[in-house]
């Protein structure tokens, strides 16, 4: 708990802030958990015409509140979908440019937006073997805009990730493009404290906004590297009652809002 009087959890905060990032009318490559909740929430608020796409092979499902899927390839995820393509086809839509937003989590993220969800420690003999890329690398490589949605913790925001599962701006500057990644790149990093973007030139992470009541020191104290702090940092309104009400109605059993 960061603020004593607040009436929402960290998960709820993160989900609401992620949802606000989603533009109406766009296609969104969504994983289960908070990203899915964020997309479902946005659909019920400012973005009724966004299209959810699941990598298991689902286009435009209607997620039923209280009946949330635990994976991107199961009947609950595919409910009332308009199409059930193969997994490769979903990624081809993305590589072709038909998918606007992808939402990723991160076990580690560094100042150039590179993400690690593979190994902590050495690759050959890891200290922690994480689940791995799944579609995350593909999203990071070829989706138009990547939103990273993760808790703001020092162990996550590291100077340099142990392993680049999903490429951000690599070593900054033009290095992403030079590696051949001619599309996309990280767009925003949304946490439970702040919203960050990337400097146009250096591609280093930059704090763009903090949530009302969050001090910039709090943001920095919870990061393993120093992001760019511009002269003006916007302040963001906390989740509204309406946002919270709708979010909780989507996941009444708090399957994902843990």
């Amino acid at each position, binding site marked *: 708990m960061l603020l004593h009087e607040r009436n929402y959890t960290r998960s709820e905060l993160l989900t609401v802030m992620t949802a606000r990032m989603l533009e109406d009318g766009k296609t969104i490559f969504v994983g289960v958990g908070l990203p899915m909740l964020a997309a479902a929430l946005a659909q019920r608020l400012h973005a009724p015409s966004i299209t959810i796409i699941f990598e298991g*092979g689902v286009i435009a499902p209607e997620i039923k509140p209280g009946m949330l899927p635990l994976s991107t390839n199961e*009947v609950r995820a595919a409910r009332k979908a308009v199409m059930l393509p193969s997994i490769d086809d979903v990624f081809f839509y993305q590589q072709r440019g038909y998918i606007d937003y992808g939402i990723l989590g991160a076990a580690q993220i560094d100042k150039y937006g590179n993400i690690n969800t593979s190994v902590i420690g050495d690759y050959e003999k890891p200290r922690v073997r994480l689940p791995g890329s799944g579609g995350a690398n593909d999203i990071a490589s070829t989706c138009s805009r990547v939103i990273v949605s993760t808790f703001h913790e020092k162990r996550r925001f590291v100077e340099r990730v142990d392993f680049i599962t999903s490429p951000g701006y690599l070593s900054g500057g033009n290095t992403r493009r030079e590696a051949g990644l001619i599309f996309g790149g990280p767009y925003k990093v949304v946490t439970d404290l702040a919203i960050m973007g990337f400097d146009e030139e250096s591609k280093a992470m930059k704090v763009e906004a903090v949530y009302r009541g969050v001090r910039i020191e709090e943001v920095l104290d919870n990061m393993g590297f120093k992001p760019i702090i511009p002269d003006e940092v916007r302040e963001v309104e906390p989740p509204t009652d309406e946002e919270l009400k709708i979010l909780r109605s989507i996941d009444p059993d708090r399957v994902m809002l843990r």
Partner: protein
Amino acid sequence: MRWNVDVRAFRYWAERRDKSPTPKLMSLDEAVKKFLRNGAVVALGGCLYSRTPMAAVHEIIRQGFRELTIVRNLAGFETDLLLVSGCLKRLVTSWCSPGYAWGMSRILRHYVENALAEFEEWSHLGIGLRLKAAAMGVPFLPTFSMLGSSIMEKLGIAEMTCPYSGEKLALVPALYPDVAIIHASRADTYGNIQIDGYTHMDKDMAQAARHVIATVEEVVDSDEIRRSAERTVIPFFCVDAVVEQPFGAYPSECWGRYEADFSHIASYQKRVDEKGIEGAKSYVSENIMGVSSFMEFLSKVGIEQLLDRVRAFRNVVT
């Protein structure tokens, strides 16, 4: 070169297959015995909790195969079981976890962190392209995925500059499994296979593999296949064995039939949470080694529970 692709050898195999429409119905026991070998590269169809060929996974464990390379796009519960049973040497995948509700796999962590099993990580599309290249009969396919990542670096994937665009591309090498095992909705005895709902990567997997074992919910007459030919995903000449096994994906789902049983996974997961590897092993002893067939396992699960999952599928869809 680590990713040596011998298209000629794999083509040779395909050319020499018996492509006559002969009946291929057999028992699962027989099919697994006939086509698996210790050390084989075995691709498992479906995706995570969708159409996992669980009956065949049980049979592989029961027959005690060793040193297997398991290929799966998103791996989960079944990989835990293969690991603790000593079958699995190398996992070729993009992701492995018991699923969203349970986070990381303690089992996988134990085996990989102690170098008892190898985790070969590709991106999800990377796995798809490896199978698709083989299915298409070419030694590689190009993609922008994986460029610049540690995945590409650790795997040592080749890159090239496209002569038409000047762009850099990662070249994903073909993967030809020795055996592909898929679970499908229905087939005729010749192996014309239909899949309802999402097909995941099963089509390419079957076309890529040297041998294909298909477990199906239902074996139907060829006339029924011919009346709905647009639903056929894999033609008979790619298939070696057809096994009728209703609920053959349980506890994962089979589209059109039953929803996944996450309560079953949860009870397994509880054993792991409480006793780690020994917990997983106790599940295997009781449910796989302690029974003579998948049908006996299903009996243990109970008809009530299975029919509940059938009802659950209908509830979601309607």
